[in-house]
């Protein structure tokens, strides 16, 4: 999988289809205005966390005619496909969703994020964990009928090393032998990529890394189709092919109508068998009105902001299967470690104890999110619950600040060496911000901290953060396939908030230097506990994703890792 990992403003957007769809910093606007008010007033009190699952349609007779009349077409709402249909070149996550339907990967992911065979029937890793061998299935074909071979895999990995490759996929952490030389033009092929026979390819790397397998087993591009005009150092021709994609996925592109629809037809050569539903369409919808579109039967599937109001409204439609699942990412309050006073662990812990995260999360999500205390989602295989919960405790926070030498001044604000304890927080415009600001102001005032919120557009926030002009910033990671994705940002090399801790670096390195999942789990438990205590950031919450499917569509079980793309080929329509 090559979902690009992007930071998104915490809680922007009603997460579209999959978390990878995080197109940018659109404002999430008021997405329920104008609908009949079904506001649940109880929800202001602490609601119980909602369980994941699929809530089946109750009354299919309510299904609108528009949907019933569609016998061989499955329509999914998507916010903003832009037409860059290539899994290695898109910038906007929605184009990633659109590409997923057309390309097949060597290795797929199941609903728990485990790697399962895709185009590759099996794979072996050498005892030294440096060499990977993929065995392709027999008789694989692209949607134009041409065969899928090991040469195509070699070609795909090669162009990712080209110096003119301007997509955002980063292959370098895989450390394929000879990759750097190829990029610099010192070699005309990559030494570590070896095609053994048309169905077998061997990749040799120079460093053990648990993420390598994921990086080198992504979607396969046809060499005959994408590589016709390829010369080392010049990939510019490939742009003309973004609008004419060709892959081995379940569907092939029929037509892209900019701003309106991406239309597909079933790929007869798909290796798991031609999909039963002949036509598949991504129709442009907007978070403002996608519920109405779904309600009117114009779409069969869409994602919605996960909260009690939307859930009730969707369930009351009768014909909707409502899917609720926990996202694989987490939201956090970034801490600026370049500020001397935030380098003191006690101050960071006080900031965590002194903020009623539970109240904020419950008010905004009404049970559709849980407070996080480690950099992982509750659905991850590396998740552990055995850590400090930092439950709201102003007394403890005060005590920690006292210990750190911050004394309450005449105006109630703590001071140390003549400096007042003022915390500047950066956030984007969202319902979460509206709730966080008053609560945080109140909470922090109680423990003697002056809270200064600044609300701005996401790019401005990133720039301010880069300039170091902040104390806290609301951020969220995007889809996390491997647990390492969630902690990489705390390593000295990657941390742009100034955090650096040799123990974290060491544990991180250890966690990706073995491929044994049980061994890794142990290391992550240790790492998570350490991070939970040291607080490089204040962990905030894990949220849920909500989507709904028209009840006449069978076989769809969307999940945190593959969204709907994993199920596309096996769907059926009940007429």
């Amino acid at each position, binding site marked *: 999988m090559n979902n*690009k*990992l*992007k*930071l998104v403003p915490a809680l922007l957007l009603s997460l579209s289809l999959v978390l990878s769809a995080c*197109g*940018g*910093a*659109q404002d999430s*606007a*008021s997405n329920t*205005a*104008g*609908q*009949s008010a079904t506001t649940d007033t109880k929800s202001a009190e602490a609601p119980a966390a909602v369980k994941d699952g699929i809530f089946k349609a109750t009354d299919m007779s309510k299904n609108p005619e528009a949907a019933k009349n*569609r016998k061989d*077409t499955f*329509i999914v709402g998507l916010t*903003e496909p*832009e037409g*860059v249909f290539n899994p290695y*070149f898109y*910038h*906007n996550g929605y184009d990633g969703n659109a590409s997923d339907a057309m390309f097949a990967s060597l290795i797929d992911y199941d609903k728990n994020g485990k790697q399962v065979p895709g185009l590759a029937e099996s794979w072996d890793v050498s005892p030294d964990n440096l060499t990977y061998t993929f065995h392709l299935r027999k008789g694989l074909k692209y949607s134009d009928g041409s065969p899928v071979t090991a040469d195509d895999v070699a070609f795909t990995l090669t162009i990712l090393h080209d110096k003119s490759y*301007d997509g*955002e996929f*980063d292959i370098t*952490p895989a450390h394929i032998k000879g990759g750097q030389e190829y990029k610099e033009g010192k070699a005309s092929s990559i030494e570590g990529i070896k095609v053994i026979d048309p169905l077998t390819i061997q990749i040799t790397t120079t460093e053990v890394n648990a993420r390598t397998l994921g990086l080198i087993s992504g979607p396969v591009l046809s060499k005959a189709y994408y590589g016709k005009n390829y010369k080392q150092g010049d990939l510019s021709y490939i*742009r003309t092919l*973004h609008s004419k994609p060709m892959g081995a996925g379940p569907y092939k592109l029929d037509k892209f*109508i*900019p*701003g*309106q*629809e991406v*239309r597909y037809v079933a790929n007869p050569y798909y290796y798991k068998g031609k999909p039963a539903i002949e*036509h598949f369409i991504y*129709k*442009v*919808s*907007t978070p*403002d*009105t996608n519920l*109405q*579109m779904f*309600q*009117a039967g*114009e779409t069969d599937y869409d994602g919605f902001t996960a909260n009690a109001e939307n859930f009730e409204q969707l369930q009351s439609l009768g014909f909707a299967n409502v899917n609720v699942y926990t996202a694989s990412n987490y939201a956090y309050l970034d801490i600026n470690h370049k500020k001397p006073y935030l380098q003191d662990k006690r101050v960071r812990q006080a900031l965590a104890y002194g903020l009623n995260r539970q109240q904020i999360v419950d008010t905004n999500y009404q049970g559709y999110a849980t407070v996080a205390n480690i950099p992982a989602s509750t659905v991850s295989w590396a998740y552990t619950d055995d850590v400090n919960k930092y439950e709201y405790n102003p007394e403890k926070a005060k005590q920690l600040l006292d210990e750190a030498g911050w004394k309450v001044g005449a105006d109630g604000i703590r001071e140390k060496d003549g400096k007042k304890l003022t915390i500047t927080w950066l956030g984007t415009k969202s319902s979460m911000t509206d709730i966080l600001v008053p609560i945080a102001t109140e909470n922090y005032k109680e423990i003697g901290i002056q809270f200064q919120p600044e609300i701005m*557009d*996401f*790019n*401005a926030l*990133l*720039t*301010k953060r*880069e300039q170091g002009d902040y104390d806290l910033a609301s951020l969220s*990671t995007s889809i996390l396939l491997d647990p390492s994705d969630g902690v990489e*940002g705390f390593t000295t*090399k*990657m941390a*742009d908030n100034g955090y650096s801790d040799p123990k974290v670096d060491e544990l991180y390195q250890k966690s990706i230097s073995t491929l044994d999942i049980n061994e890794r789990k142990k290391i992550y438990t240790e790492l998570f506990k350490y991070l939970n205590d040291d607080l490089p950031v204040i962990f905030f919450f894990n949220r849920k994703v909500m989507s709904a499917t028209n009840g006449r569509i069978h076989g769809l079980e969307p999940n945190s890792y593959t969204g709907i793309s994993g199920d596309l080929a096996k769907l059926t329509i009940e007429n």
Partner: protein
Amino acid sequence: MWQYIIRRLLQAIPTLLGVSIIIFFVFALTPGDYVDTNIQLTPEKAHELKVLYGLDKPIIERYFIWLGNVMKGDFGFSLQFQKPVTSLLNDYIWNSFLIAIVSLILTWTIAILIGVYSALKKYSWFDVLVTLGVFAAMSFPSFFLGLLLIKFFAVDLKWLPVGGMTYGGSNSTGMAYVLEVLKHMILPVSVLTMLSVGSLTRYFRANMLDVIRQDFVRTARAKGLKERVVIFKHALRNASLPAITLLGFELPGLFAGAIITEKIFAWPGVGHIHMQALDNRDYTVLMGFTMFLAILTVLGNLLADIFYSVADPRIRLK
């Protein structure tokens, strides 16, 4: 006349150059660039991309590279859409034009009719009610109005589609296609019309009131002309003169796209693109599009001046 037009066009060049400098720097100086929007890139990868996209160069140099390309007729390449800016805009701009021109015609027709009538029946019930109505429509935020119409006409009554330009998967052609698009246009066009008709109605009403008090109208009536001729031939013509300038300003608006309305109705217009480009700091698209609108503004002004002289022989262009 031709001399005047050519001189005005030549004068537009420094204006546009100045505009391009301002908007380039405004966009370039907004915090963050295209690569920064993805901060999980490793610093090396981010730097690599900046070099590939030319974002590592000093801002002044970037401006001149852009300007040089524009001189050659090349408006650049959208990073985000991986497409030349001109072909990208071409994909979306006509959809925006479609709803804008229809709503423009509707707005002006309605505004003239209502404006004239309420001027003639000043302070009548009709005048009061219309004034109330147009002010009410005008003061609604467009997203609220849009959502309200969707609820009534699309969700409750099921008469009209919620959004988009055609039905999902539709393959209609010819007349059927035209009807389908018309059906999808009704709601967005209504919103746009309702939002703009108010001020224009008031404008026509005020002008009309001014004109019918003047001597030449009295003279016309004294000559025994029919009231209809007096109003529409003598009064309305004179009342419309200042509106020509206003019409000239509408030209860029026809292509600018209505960001909020288009978003609510999922209309595939250029407003989307503009917003997306801003969010992603896709400078070439922002620059290309804004420059296009600047050119249209200059052109609209010129056209207004020319038409003004045609409509009112008292004005001579020199």
